[in-house]
Each structure stands twice: as structure tokens, then as C-alpha cells.
């Protein structure tokens, strides 16, 4: 615990340094302090996960009237591990990245506080402490969105959406938690957990629904996701990496902590609801990721997709536990947690790489990129591995976790109750569908962004980013490889975390080793062996290839249908790449396209120019949220009439009140 407090302390000192030091030393000093803090936290989290010990810290000196409570337990430690790992990368990245607005006092301070709260939220163990860290996390991320491009319309709009939805979510969480506190004597999570079974079932369900709404919105679950594809792209890259990898995971953490740990499971429909949210999110996110042309927006939608899969895992775990299959439930929970950790790493790496691309080219629009593999080879490699991981290429981390998830779902088929069965079925379908769609999205990302010819001058003139940024990206690639190749090493850690999450210690259904073996299911994967096979074959083919034919290739022009000149504009763009799929799913995506044809003045049969524009907005935003906002604004305009300046009216308010009091009270 002391080490953990020290880690928090380093981040806090980093924040103070960022707020007070001069511009020149601010970034390196605060970033290195926070990096040390994060690395310490990685160590502490690993230690807790390995030993399985919990420890608690309470002080009445902080947080008036309630005191600050922190508890380190394996479940929280897993999330701390994820956020501190990415946090360290983000801080190192900052050294090279921070320029202009990002190096400003506010931005750096907020980044440090953001890292601090990401470490503290999973450790906070009372209602007040939790809400304090939670809101501080919201505030710091909100301000981070605003700092980088405070003058762009998108950033401001994104910040507003984010702020409002996160506030509504926090309100919902707060009421839910307070409903749970109302009968217990204390407000620490231990008290809540001890007393929650004495609450009436309807109160528990109501509290869970409220809490779920709030956390689901943080986790980007559809239909509460609207803020996410707006906010994540607009934040500076270290912040968006943290938001997309760690902050969204806090939503999952909250659902597990409250639903499974504090409320002890509850009824099956809770978890069916969680899983349904997951199914919808996974599909919606994957679909939008395939059609997005903004690099970071694509990544943000893919976050919604992956978090959807995580929610499916969590929901399945809850539903299976309710069906009396704790061991399978445990499996699903472990899968969800492994996916959280894996996602944190690869999505963090991708966002950092997106920041590198933006830094090098000045744009995030895939339609203006291309050919970056020649100029930014390191970044390209990071993107390739991380994208491979998210596409679940075997022997990378995404694959291990998705395999585990599928095992959990399949296992449930054998003897789960009907609601659980429906969850499993939908989960499997969602897993299958998103697999294909994610592949499209990330082939597009890498293929359009990094291969081919540069589509703009800026993309052609890109240069590789500074060393610190590359180190940070490389750091985040490590988990993708390690979890992918030797997932078995993490099973005992996950087992402890999942036990806390399920509120019971269950013997891990997974055998130890470097691979994953679920003997009950006769299912196993040995990624290390697969990797040896793959690399062996690859090497063999390479050797054969080199021996059989001439060694060096002659460079020739690509075939241009008989034309000599091949311009970059002739290439497929991200928009055109996704067009067939967009057409297939037009009913869901509702794309809007305009074609504007300018004819030559002499004849209508010849065109001077054709302009084609294609937009894929968020249907849920347009149909679900806009009407509410418009209505609220109408109410606001109408309400102005209440205060129309007439003193007679003002006096009449009071007169009526007086008469009402006289009639009612006396």
C-alpha cells in the first residue's frame, strides 16, 4: 500500500511541478515523475495480483466529512495494471510529443492528474472517494480535450458532449451508490458489500440499473456512446490513448465492482442486459469503424466494439453464475479481464501511433495519408502489430483473449439456463460478426494509411517521430506479444482478479502452462508452438524464395490500364475502400452522399468537374439525442417568459404562494 501511495504521490508531485515550473523544464520533469509513479504502480499491481493480498488505507485528513479510503485488491489491481502501463507510455510519449498547447501549464497538469485518477479510481473504496476520483478523472480528461485544439469547433463540441454525458452518467452512478448506502451504516465498499443483501430486491435492481447506465456510458456502450467517437479523436494523443484504453475500462470495472462484488450478482436479467449492451455496442462500433475515415475516430469506434465484447464477457459471466455454473462464469470473466488488459495495450499503442502520424503529417484523415511505411517504418511496425492484435491474428494478444471468451460462451451452451443461453448465442454471433468487420477496418487503416502512395504533400514529407515517442509505442507493443505468445503466464493473475470480481474463489478452469488449456472443454491453444510453426514456415519459404529465383527485384511502374501516368489520386481511398460495406449496411449507417456535377458550358454531355461527398454520421445521435437537445432548448427559450421584467408578475408569484400557504397550511 505504501508503494502505491508513493506512486500516487509521484503523480501528484508531477502535477504540482507541471503547474509551477517554467515552460522549458515542465514537460520532462513532470513526465518523468509521473512515469516513475506509473512504473511503481505497475509493480504494486503485479505484486497484488501475484500474492492475492488486499490492503486498505484510510485517512480522515483528506476529503472533508468522509475521509479517503483506498483498497488494493486483485480486481482493482488488474485495472491499475492496465492504466499504469499505458500511463507510463503516455508520459514518456509526452516528452517528445508535447509542443504548443499540449506543453501548456493546464494541459500538463491535467495530464498528470488524469494519470493519477486512473490509478486511484480502481483503488477507491468508499462511495465518496470513488466519486471524487471519478469526477476528477472526468474533469481532467475534459480539460485535456479542450487544451490541444481549443479553437477548433469539433473539439469544443466534443468536449460538451463528453462533459454532459459523463455528468449524467456520474449522476446516475451516484444515485445508484447512494441507494445502496442508505441502509448501511457506512459508505465504504466493505459496508456496502456487507449490507447489500439486506436491501429489498427491487432496490438492488434499481440501484444496479442506475449504476449500469452510468458505467455503460463511460464504457462507451451503445446507445450511450455518442461522446466517445467525438471526444477520443479530439484529445491530444497521450490523453486519447489513456481515455480509450484505461478510462473506458473503468466503466467495465464499475460494472464488475458494483454488480458482482458489492451487490453479489443479483438476478439473471441484469447480466442479460449487460451482455445485450455489449452485443449492440460490438456490432455498432465495428460497423462504424469500418466506414470511418478519420484515423482516431476509427480507433474510437473500435474501442466501442472491443468494450462491447468485454461487456459480453462480463454479462455472460454474471448470467452463467446465476445458472449455477461458477467455473464457466469464471472463465468468461477471465476472458473479459484479459481482453481489457490486451485492449489497453494495443489501443494505447494505436492511439499513440495515430498521434505520431498526426504529428508527422498534420492530418488524421486517412484519405490524405498513404505510403507512411516508407517514411515512418517504426510507427508502421507498431501499427501493424497492434492492428494484428486487434484483428485477433493468432499469437497476438487479441486472439488469446477472444479465444478465451469463445471458450466461456461455448462452455455455457452445455447446460446454461435459457436467458444465459440467449446471451451466449448472441455473444457468439457478435464475436463472429465483429471479427470480420474489425479486419476490414484495420486492413483499411494500415493499407490506406501506410501503404500505397502518399495522397497529400504532407503525407509525402512525413518524417519519423522522436525517439521518446517511439519508445513509448514500443513499450505498449510488448503486452500484445507477450499475452499473445504466452497467455498462460497470466492465468493465475487473472484468476485472482476474476475471483474478486465474482465474489468467490473458484479453482481456475484453465490449466497452467504457457498456453491456454481448458480441459473440461478439451479446448487448448499453444500460441508459442503456433508461433514457432509460423515463423519456421515463413523462414523456410523465404529461404526457398531466395534460392529459387533471382535475389533482387527490379522496380517497375505499376500497371495503369495502358496509361503511363499513375497519380496518387487514382488509388482507392478509405472512403472507397469501405464503400461496398457501407452500401451493404446502409440501413443502419444511413450514409449521406452528395454528387455535384459541373457541366462544361458548351455541352451538357461533358463534365468539367464532379464533386462527391460522403458522410456517415451517427444515427443514434441524430435520431436519439438531437430531438432531446432541441426540446430542452425550446423549454429554455419558453421559460424566458417567466422573467419578462414585469414587477406585477414577480409580485403575483409571491401573492399566489402566500394564498396557497394560507389555504393549505392554515
Amino acid at each position, binding site marked *: 500500500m505504501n508503494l502505491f501511495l508513493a506512486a500516487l504521490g509521484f503523480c501528484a508531485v508531477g502535477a504540482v511541478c507541471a503547474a509551477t515550473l517554467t515552460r522549458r523544464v515542465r514537460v520532462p520533469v513532470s513526465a518523468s515523475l509521473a512515469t516513475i509513479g506509473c512504473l511503481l504502480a505497475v509493480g504494486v499491481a503485479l505484486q497484488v495480483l501475484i500474492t492475492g493480498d488486499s490492503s486498505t488505507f484510510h485517512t*480522515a*485528513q*483528506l*476529503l*472533508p*466529512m*468522509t*475521509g479517503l479510503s483506498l483498497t488494493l485488491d486483485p480486481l482493482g489491481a488488474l485495472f491499475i495494471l492496465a492504466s499504469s502501463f499505458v500511463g507510463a507510455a503516455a508520459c514518456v510519449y509526452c516528452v517528445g510529443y508535447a509542443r504548443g498547447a499540449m506543453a501548456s501549464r*493546464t494541459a500538463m497538469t491535467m495530464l498528470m492528474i488524469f494519470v493519477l485518477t486512473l490509478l486511484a479510481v480502481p483503488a477507491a473504496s468508499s*462511495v*465518496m472517494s470513488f*466519486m*471524487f476520483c471519478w*469526477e*476528477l478523472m*472526468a*474533469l481532467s480528461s475534459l480539460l485535456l480535450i*479542450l487544451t490541444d485544439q*481549443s*479553437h477548433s469547433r469539433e473539439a*469544443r463540441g466534443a*468536449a*460538451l458532449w463528453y*462533459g*454532459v454525458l459523463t*455528468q*449524467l452518467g456520474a*449522476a*446516475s452512478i*451516484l*444515485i445508484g451508490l*447512494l*441507494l445502496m*448506502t*442508505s441502509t448501511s451504516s457506512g*459508505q465504504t465498499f466493505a459496508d456496502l458489500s456487507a449490507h447489500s443483501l439486506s436491501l429489498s430486491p427491487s432496490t438492488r435492481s434499481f440501484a444496479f440499473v442506475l449504476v449500469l447506465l452510468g458505467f455503460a456510458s463511460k464504457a462507451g456502450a451503445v446507445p450511450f456512446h455518442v461522446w466517445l467517437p467525438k471526444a477520443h479523436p479530439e484529445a491530444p494523443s497521450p490523453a486519447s490513448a489513456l481515455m480509450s484504453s484505461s478510462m473506458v475500462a473503468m466503466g467495465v470495472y464499475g460494472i464488475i465492482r458494483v454488480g458482482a462484488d458489492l451487490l453479489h450478482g443479483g438476478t439473471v436479467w441484469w447480466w442479460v442486459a449487460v451482455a445485450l449492451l455489449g452485443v449492440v455496442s460490438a456490432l455498432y462500433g465495428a460497423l462504424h469503424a469500418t466506414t470511418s475515415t478519420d484515423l482516431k475516430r476509427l480507433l474510437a469506434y473500435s474501442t466501442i466494439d472491443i468494450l462491447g465484447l468485454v461487456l459480453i464477457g462480463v454479462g455472460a459471466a454474471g448470467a452463467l453464475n446465476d445458472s449455477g455454473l461458477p467455473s464457466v462464469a469464471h472463465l468468461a470473466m477471465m476472458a473479459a479481464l484479459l481482453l481489457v488488459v490486451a485492449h489497453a495495450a494495443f489501443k494505447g499503442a494505436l492511439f499513440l501511433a495515430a498521434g505520431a502520424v498526426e504529428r508527422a503529417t498534420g492530418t488524421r484523415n486517412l484519405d490524405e495519408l498513404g505510403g507512411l511505411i516508407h517514411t515512418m517504418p517504426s510507427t508502421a511496425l507498431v501499427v501493424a502489430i497492434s492492428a494484428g492484435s486487434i484483428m485477433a491474428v493468432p499469437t497476438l494478444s487479441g486472439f488469446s483473449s477472444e479465444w478465451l471468451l469463445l471458450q466461456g460462451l461455448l462452455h455455457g451452451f452445455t447446460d446454461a439456463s435459457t436467458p444465459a443461453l440467449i446471451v451466449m448465442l448472441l455473444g457468439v454471433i457478435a464475436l463472429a460478426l465483429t471479427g470480420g468487420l474489425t479486419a476490414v477496418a484495420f486492413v483499411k487503416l494500415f493499407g490506406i494509411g501506410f501503404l500505397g502512395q502518399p495522397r497529400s504533400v504532407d503525407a509525402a514529407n512525413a518524417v519519423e517521430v522522436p525517439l521518446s515517442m517511439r519508445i513509448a509505442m514500443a513499450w505498449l507493443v510488448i503486452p500484445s506479444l507477450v499475452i499473445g505468445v504466452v497467455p498462460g503466464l497470466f492465468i493465475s493473475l487473472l484468476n485472482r482478479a476474476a475471483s474478486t470480481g465474482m465474489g468467490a474463489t473458484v479453482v481456475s478452469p484453465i490449466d497452467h502452462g504457457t498456453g491456454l488449456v481448458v480441459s473440461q472443454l478439451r479446448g487448448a491453444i499453444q500460441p508459442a508452438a503456433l508461433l514457432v510453426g509460423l515463423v519456421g514456415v515463413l523462414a523456410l519459404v523465404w529461404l526457398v524464395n531466395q534460392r529459387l529465383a533471382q535475389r533482387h527485384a527490379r522496380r517497375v511502374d505499376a500497371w495503369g490500364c495502358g496509361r503511363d501516368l499513375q497519380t496518387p489520386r487514382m488509388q482507392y481511398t478509405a472512403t472507397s475502400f469501405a464503400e461496398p460495406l457501407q452500401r451493404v449496411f446502409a440501413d443502419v449507417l444511413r450514409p449521406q452522399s452528395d454528387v455535384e456535377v459541373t457541366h462544361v458550358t458548351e455541352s451538357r454531355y461533358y463534365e468539367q468537374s464532379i464533386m462527391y461527398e460522403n458522410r456517415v454520421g451517427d444515427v443514434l445521435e441524430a435520431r436519439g439525442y438531437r430531438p432531446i437537445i432541441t426540446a*430542452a*432548448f425550446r*423549454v*429554455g*427559450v419558453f*421559460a*424566458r417568459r*417567466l*422573467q419578462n421584467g414585469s*414587477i406585477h*408578475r*414577480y*409580485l403575483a*408569484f*409571491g401573492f*399566489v*404562494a*402566500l394564498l396557497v*400557504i*394560507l389555504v393549505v*397550511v*392554515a
Partner: protein
Amino acid sequence: MLILGILAIPLATTLLAAGVSWRPWIGWATAVSSTAVLGLGIWLCVTTLSGSQWALNHSLRADSLSAFMVVVIATVSLLATLFTPRTMRQEMESGITTARYARHYVILMQVFITCMLLAVLTANLGVLWVSIEATTIATTFLVSHRRTDGAFEASWKYVILCSIGIALAFLGTVLIYYAELHATGSVHSSSLDWTSVMAVAHHLDPNVTRLAFALLVVGYGTKVGLVPMHSWLPDAHSQAPAPVSALMSGVLLTVAFYGLLRFRAVAVAALGPTFPRTLLVVVGIASLVLATVMLIAQRDLKRMLAYSSIEHMGLLALGAAAGTPLAIAAVLLHILGHGITKAVLFLSAGEIYYLEGTTEMAKFSGLLARRPALAGIFGFALVSLVAFPPFSLFVSELTMARAEVDAGLWWAVAISLVCLSVIFAALTRHGRQMLMGTASTTDAAPSTLAPSMAIPLVTALVACAALGVLSWPLQSLLAHAAQVVMP
């Protein structure tokens, strides 16, 4: 002795200001006087922890609650008076004020502060009423200080609405007195004193007390800015000079609320918790909802801040409705946090008004680019206002919510949180419009802020954040003060 000192210092300053014509050093003298009051107030807090203090033949009395309110008043008036020289200089430069009116201004400010101090230090509930009514008179001319159409209109409405409202409070006080006399059976010298009323509070006639409390809620609610008698508030706050708005919004409202807190204790003792709670919840929710809908499409910066005061008063009413010691402690912390935050906001809004020449929000944008320091202070104060941690409003709002849920008012908490979220959206939208965006005028270099302005405001914000993070300075005082108004 301490109590007399607290009252004597601003009185002496008043006499000093009345005695000589306006000089900038008088402005600084008022700041010194506020600092002295603050020091004595803190001392009073320490002494009252061990028991109530009396003065002037038992006509003045201080317990922890009064002492805490003295600190609140002194803190906010320190902030406001620190800006007096600056405001006067600016107004004289732009020809709004002459030395004569500057002198009036300083005198009235000190009278105003003295009245508020008297309101919290008097032992008699009748004198409480008298001094709160006296603040109306003192502030009228402060509201109309600018001598524009709007200022006169605002102060006219202010006097009419507040007088009628406070008259109802007087009727309520009379009814309490009537019930007290009936309960004790005789008149004595300390009748209508807080202690003697509380001594027989359990025996007060419920019918009379019920009516009396309802009238008091509407009456003092007028000064607090609670619906339905809130209408003066946006007008007066938007027209008064910035330091006056800061004082009015920061402490005048809450001094009136202090009165309500006292009477709530009487009413709960006589009636049980249900009736006072229902009434306070009704006005609290009504105020919140009104503030919410008025903030959505608000156009004027200072009116926006005024409606936000109504919102916070609604929250205080809800907190008082819960009425547990925890809730009252949170209410008190909220009073302090809101006072500081609102003072910072009004003072920086005054500077914005001076620099931009308007308070209509649509007419200026890109403040962060043009005046980073001022806009930064304003922005962080807005963050504090919407109750984000680490600022103390967060802790107090959360604790109030917790106490309200404990009291079974979870539905009220739900409504208030929805309102707060909408208000957050509205304030963020307005704030974004003002602070961000492209600069409407093409100022070459971002202008800086004078240290005399920046230091107090930043210190105040840091203090507000410290109050929200550290328990140490206030914890026991708040608990003690909350016990005072426990029936």
C-alpha cells in the same frame, strides 16, 4: 468582547469613510478591516468550540454557527473589498462614478457588511429580521450605484420585492413570538431570543408554528432567492457593481439562509421533521428547476451567475430539508464554497464587463486566446461552480446528496442531479461560447492580468480547492455548528 470587536471594526471603518472624502487608501482600509474581522472571526470560531459567547447584556450571542457565518462573511467581504479601489478607479475613469458616489459606495458597503455581521451575531430572532431588512436598504443604493436605467429599475424591483417578502417573514416571526408567549405564559426580557425560543420549542403550538414556518420560508426565502420570490435576484445581481454582486450572491443570500436554518430547528422541534422537510424540498426543487430552465437559453453573463445562485440556494434548501447533522455540516461547507466561488466569478465577470463593455455572452468569444489569465480564472471558477472536484462544492454537494438519500429523499436527489446535469450542460455551453472560439476582435498580443487582481482570485480558488480536499481546518467546527441547529 470578541463579538463587539467584530461589529466595531466595520462600524469604525464606516465612520472613517464617512468622515473623509474618497481616497483610494480608504478602499484599502476597508480591506484591512475585513481582514481584521476575518482574524477575529477565526478566533471566535476557536472560542465558540467550547461554548457560546455573549455580549452587551446578552443581546449579542455567538455560537459555532454564528462564528462560522462570520468567517464566511469576512472571507467574501475581504475579496470584495480588495477590489474596491480597482472598481472605483475603473468607474471613475469611465465617468460612471464621482468621488462623492465613491464615498457613498464605501460607506454603504461597510454598513451592508455590518448589518450582515449583526444578523448572525444577534441573540434575538426579531433583531435578526431587522438586520436582514436593513441589508436591503443598504444594498439598494449599491445596486443603483451605476445610476443607469437598468440600475434604477433593478434596485426599485429589489426593494419592493424584498420588502414585501421580508414583511412576510416578520409576520412569521410574530407568530413564533405569539406561540412562544403562549408556551411560556409570560413575557420576559429575553423573549424571542434564540435560546429561550429553543427552550420551549417542543411546546410551541403546532398550528401556529406551521403557518409561521411557511411564512418564514417564503419571507426569508425572498432574500435567499428561493422560488417563488426569487425574481429580484437576477436583476439586482446583474446591475450592481461586481464587488456588490459578489457580496450579495456570496453571503447576503446565505445570511438569510442562516435565518432559515435557525427557524427550521424551531419548526422541527415543534412539528416533527415532516412538515419542514416537505416545505423545504418543495421550494428547493422549485428553485432548482427554475434555475435550470432559465439557464438553458441564458444570454447575459451576470444573469447566468445569478440564476446559478438560485440553483445553489435550492441545493441548500434540499440539504436543510434532510436536516441530519451531516447534511447541515455539508450545507455550511457549501455556503462557504459557494460564497468564495461566486465572489471570484462575479469579480472576474466585472473585469470582463469592464474590458469588453458588455455582459451579453453572444457578443464576446475567444477570451482564452485574448485574455488567458482572466479567462483561466473564470474558467476554473466555473468548474468549481459546477461542483467538480477538487473544489469544495463537490464534497458538500455529494455529502448533502448522501444525507438526503439517508433521509429517504432519493427521488429529490434524483431530480436535483438531473437538474444539475442540465445546468452543467448549459453552463459549459455558455462558458465554451465565451472562453473558446476565435477571437472576435484582432488583439495582437494576449493581454495579461494585474497581480493585484490575479493573486486574490487565484488564492481564493486554491483555498476553495483546499477546502474540498483537506479535512483539517473545518471538520470539527462544521460538526459543532451543525449541532447548534439540531432540534
